[in-house]
Each structure stands twice: as C-alpha cells, then as structure tokens.
C-alpha cells in the first residue's frame, strides 16, 4: 500500500543514504492493528489515537517500556491490548529500563542466542509528567549515552492519571486541579510550558520530532524516517485529553488540528540538532479559536474576558513563528 515518491535522504553524520518509502495520504496508513480495542483509556483519548498510529508504524517487533501514567493502565492483569511485550517501570526510570532491555538483547545476539532478525525495537512510552518532570534526567542520560531506543511522550499537558494536576507541560493560563483560577490568581497556571523539544534537542539526538494524532500521515512518515538512525529517536505527541481539557470526547481530533492550525503546536523534526518544520499552516488561525472550546481555558472568557492573558498567549505563539521566520 505504501511506497510512493522515494525520497533520498542526505543523512547526517555518517548515516548511509537510504531510500524511505513515504506514505502520501490517510489511505496509505498500514491497515494492521498492533494495539487492540477494549483498553481502559477514556473514550476519545488523544494519546491513545497517537499511540495506535505509532504502533502501526513501529510494527510488532517491539518491546514497550512504560513509565507510570495513564497508559500504565492499558495493560491491567490479566489483559493487554498489545501484540508485543510490555514492561512497567517507575515514573522516572523508563529510559533506564530501556537500557537494560537493549543491553540484554545485544548480549543475546552477540552470544548467538537470538537471531539478529528477531531483534526488538525498544520503545519508551511515558506521559508528560515523566517526560517533562520526573524522568527528564534519566532521559538526558540515555540520550547522552546514545542508547538505541524510541521515546514516545503522550503530552496531555497535566498529570491526567491522578485527576489533572499541574505538570511541567501545562501551558500558561490553564486550569488544573492544583492551579484553579481564583481571586489570587485569576488566570490559573502562571508558568509557561517547558520546551521539551528544545531541551532534548540540545543533546543533538539523531532524530527528534513532534507529532499529532490529527496528522497520522506526518506521524507515520516521521517514524519511517527515524528508522534509519541508530541511537535515540524521540517523539512528543500533543494529546488532547477530554476530561483534562474539558472537551467533549468527540472533539479530540478537532482540538489536535486546531493546535496545529493556530500555531500552538508546531509539527517539526530535528536531525542531529537541525530543526525543520514539517507542517506549517498556510494561514494561522487566531489562538482564541483553540482556547475557547476548552473547559480548562473557560475562565479566560467568562465571567470577564482576561484580555492581557489572551494577548500574552497569542504573542507567545507569534514570537515562536517569527523566530523561525515562518509567520506569513
């Protein structure tokens, strides 16, 4: 099904030239399902949609190392939605778990006890709490050691599993369980979202990308491109969260699209530190369109419009795209 338009990659440092078969449309998405329905994830989970496409791109020869978070609950004894192996680790130590599995596989291959064709891709799966906050140092170490692994972060911008508390990924002016808008702080969270892409990119990993559940073609092509590199291959997926963001479960994809179209979530990739934007909207929609449909930003519009906060969010987005000289 796939395989139109072979694109030659110039490659980075010492990477062989490789022809990548990109998919062009939604019809080119592999039909094979590697993650089955029946999971305990909420109806309309954006992270689950992103993960479903990631699993299609990764194939079945994978082993997932899952840090504590919403997706820990995907595999609750005696059920698992995956066709592949899965390991559960503590919140901060998923990359360390990945190191152990990678080493074990390497040793087995070296000793001739495992056919190199049977090798598995080691995939770390964490939420934004583990990626942005608790697991940041162990991830930094793993990238620095050039560990050959994938990292998928489903970023729903709060600690969703425990009832939506503030995390390092929570954007400015968002309402969470621990940043309720009130008399003292009428805007909710006063801190800006961490730029995890920039933090990770400062390590100059072979491949790093942001992905969105609403852009599955872009998502799958990024995984296809990442496959050629040995070393850390990192992905951050903005994942609309119906209970956390205060949206209807049917709006998940709409919100993910709006995040890209308003410029809030930039779809980009970085190969050895060099950043390129993969999806740039022709005309940016005002950020307000993204904010006003979400319950977590409702306090910016009712009972009084908080003009200063709204302007600050729009200016932040403009500043980002101006910096990359892409604002038309």
């Amino acid at each position: 099904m796939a395989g139109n338009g072979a694109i030659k990659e110039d490659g980075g440092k010492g990477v062989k030239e490789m022809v990548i078969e990109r998919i062009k449309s939604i019809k080119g998405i592999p039909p094979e399902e590697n993650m089955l329905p029946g999971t305990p994830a909420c109806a309309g989970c954006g992270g689950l949609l992103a993960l479903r496409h990631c699993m299609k791109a990764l194939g079945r020869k994978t082993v997932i190392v899952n840090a504590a978070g919403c997706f820990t609950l995907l595999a609750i004894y005696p059920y698992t939605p995956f066709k592949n192996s899965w390991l559960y680790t503590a919140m901060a130590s998923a990359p360390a778990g990945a190191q152990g599995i990678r080493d074990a596989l390497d040793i087995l291959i070296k000793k001739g006890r495992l056919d190199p064709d049977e090798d598995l891709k080691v995939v770390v799966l964490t939420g934004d709490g583990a990626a942005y906050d608790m697991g940041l140092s162990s991830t930094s170490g793993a990238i620095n050691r050039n560990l050959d692994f994938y990292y998928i972060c489903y970023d729903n911008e709060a600690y969703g599993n425990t009832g939506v508390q503030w995390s390092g990924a929570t954007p400015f002016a968002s309402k969470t369980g621990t940043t309720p808008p009130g008399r003292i702080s009428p805007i909710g969270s006063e801190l800006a979202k961490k730029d995890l892409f920039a933090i990770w990119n400062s390590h100059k990993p072979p491949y790093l990308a942001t992905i969105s559940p609403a852009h599955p073609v872009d998502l799958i092509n990024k995984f296809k491109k990442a496959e050629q590199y040995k070393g850390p291959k990192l992905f951050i997926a903005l994942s609309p969260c119906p209970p956390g963001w205060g949206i209807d479960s049917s709006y998940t994809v709409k919100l993910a699209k709006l995040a890209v179209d308003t410029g809030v979530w930039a779809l980009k990739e970085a190969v050895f530190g060099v950043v390129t934007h993969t999806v740039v909207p022709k005309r940016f929609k005002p950020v307000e369109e993204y904010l006003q449909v979400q319950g977590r930003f409702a306090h910016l519009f009712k009972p009084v419009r908080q003009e200063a906060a709204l302007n600050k969010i729009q200016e932040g987005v403009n500043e980002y795209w101006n910096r990359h000289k892409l604002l038309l």
Partner: protein
Amino acid sequence: MQREVYRLKMYKLRFHGRGGQGARVASKVLGTAAFLDGYYAQDFPLYGAERRGAPVAASARISEEPIMERGVIAEPDIVIVMDETLLQDPLTKPVLGIKQGGIVLINTAHSPEEAKVEYKITAQVLTLDITKIGLDMLGMPILSTLAGGVAARIVGLSEDSLTDAVKKVLSEIITDKRLLDKNVAAALYCFNAITPAKIELELKTTDAIKKKSSKVISVPFEPATVSSPAINATGNTPLRMTGNWRVFRPVWNYDSCTRCMICVARCPDGCILVNEDGFPYTDYDNCKGCLICVEECPTNSLGKVREVHV
C-alpha cells in the same frame, strides 16, 4: 443496658456510575443537602484506577446522630445505579449487599417491574430515565446533580436544601452561571419526578455482626517472579467489551459514504473495521462511543442514536 442501634435513623447509600457521569458529585450533593437539613453526613468516592467510562462508586451516610462508622459501605439501604449496563458487569455488582426492603433506583427507560425481573433484584426497585432528563435539560449526559436530586427525595430531604447544595457544590466546579441554573432546575425536576417507596428494613443488632470473627489476611513474601502479575497473553483486551460504555451509538448511512477511510484513521480504539467492499463498519462490542467518527466524517455519513439497553 439495651442498645437499639437501628433506632438511629441512618441511611447508607451507594452510587454506582461510570467515570465522568458524576457519581462522586452526586454523593457530594446529597451529603451537602443532608448537612444543610441538619443531619450528620458523610460522602466519599471509592478511588481506584478511574478513567472516563470506567465503573466508579461513591457512598454517603446520613444520620440524625454523629456517625461513628467509616469506610466503604458493604450493606447499603439505598443504591443508585446511574448506568444500567453496570448491573450486568460481573466486576461491579452494584446491588451487592443491598438489604431486604431497601431501595434500588435504576437509571433506565424501563418500568420498575421490568427491571426487577430483568436484573433479578429482590429489593424494591424504582426507575427513572435520568439520562434522558440530563440530555433534555442540560444537553449532556452528566447526571451528578440529577442523581443527587433523586437520592435526596428518597431519603426525604427538603427541596430548599437540595437547591442550596447543588449551588454550593457546583460553584466550586463550574463558572458558567447558566449551566448552574440548569442543573438546579434538573435536580429539582428529578426530585419531584419520583414517588419514593418506604424503606422497610429488617432490623439487625450489632451483636449479630460482632459474632462474625474477622480474619486478618496475611500475604507471605514472594520473589518478584511470583508476586508480580505477569500477563502471558497478547492482545486480549477485546474480551473486556467496552461497548457498554456508550451513551450514543454511531450509525452508518452507506448511501453517502465515499470510503475515504478518515473515520478509520480517527478512531482512538481502532474499532472501525473495513469489510470486503471497502466500506467501514463499527465494532460495537468495543466502541466506547466517543463519536469522533461522527464529528470527523466529511460526508456526514455517520449519525448518532441514544443507546437504550435491554
């Protein structure tokens, strides 16, 4: 000295719903209303690994005298079942422990007699289609204040306390004044929509309970290979049948379907399959009813109908 424990008028209630339906807030509304009416009250949710759609429970105790009991209610007087499908869920068992002569209120379109036979309930059964009232009056299937209103009527609280309780509890959660007013109206509508039966309880003395000796369960130390749950299967979650989470069912109109595959790519659970002719169809056993497919279909070939369980 003779102690007549059940002379105290204490009602024990349990709410069963699905995450996001509002079982926790329902118990809070009831507890607050009871407090405002001058009773002693406890209300608390049973925390677990909740997701939106997963079975959840909340409890409340209402008494004329200080409540010395704590913890989960094993033998409730009143059970409010906010989602009918839970009655068939083998892990939830909403009516477990209900006392003879107690009351089970079921959120269903069926009559009490039908429900009593269908679900083999020995206690008294009341029914009310709370979901329909929620959809009509609030425009969404969130039933917290409505179930709170029903429970307030069954235990015999006043209309004024209920109104104040709804306002008090909701003003901490939502900022939309109009939605709050709608909730007050809906709670009062539910309050007046049912005629509660008299709770006829078999009186038990505490001695009867005390006679049962409680056992301390000790779990011996085992190495991780034995004590940690290892799943030795692949891809078996479809057995869980999450299809009973749905409030609305996506329905297809194949006349206008162009087989564009957008719905297939948008379903988070991968519940949209493709038949030999290339037309998509829903796996209703597992579809959770998020309705992303209905929202995303470019040709409007998908609609939704209210799910009514038999």
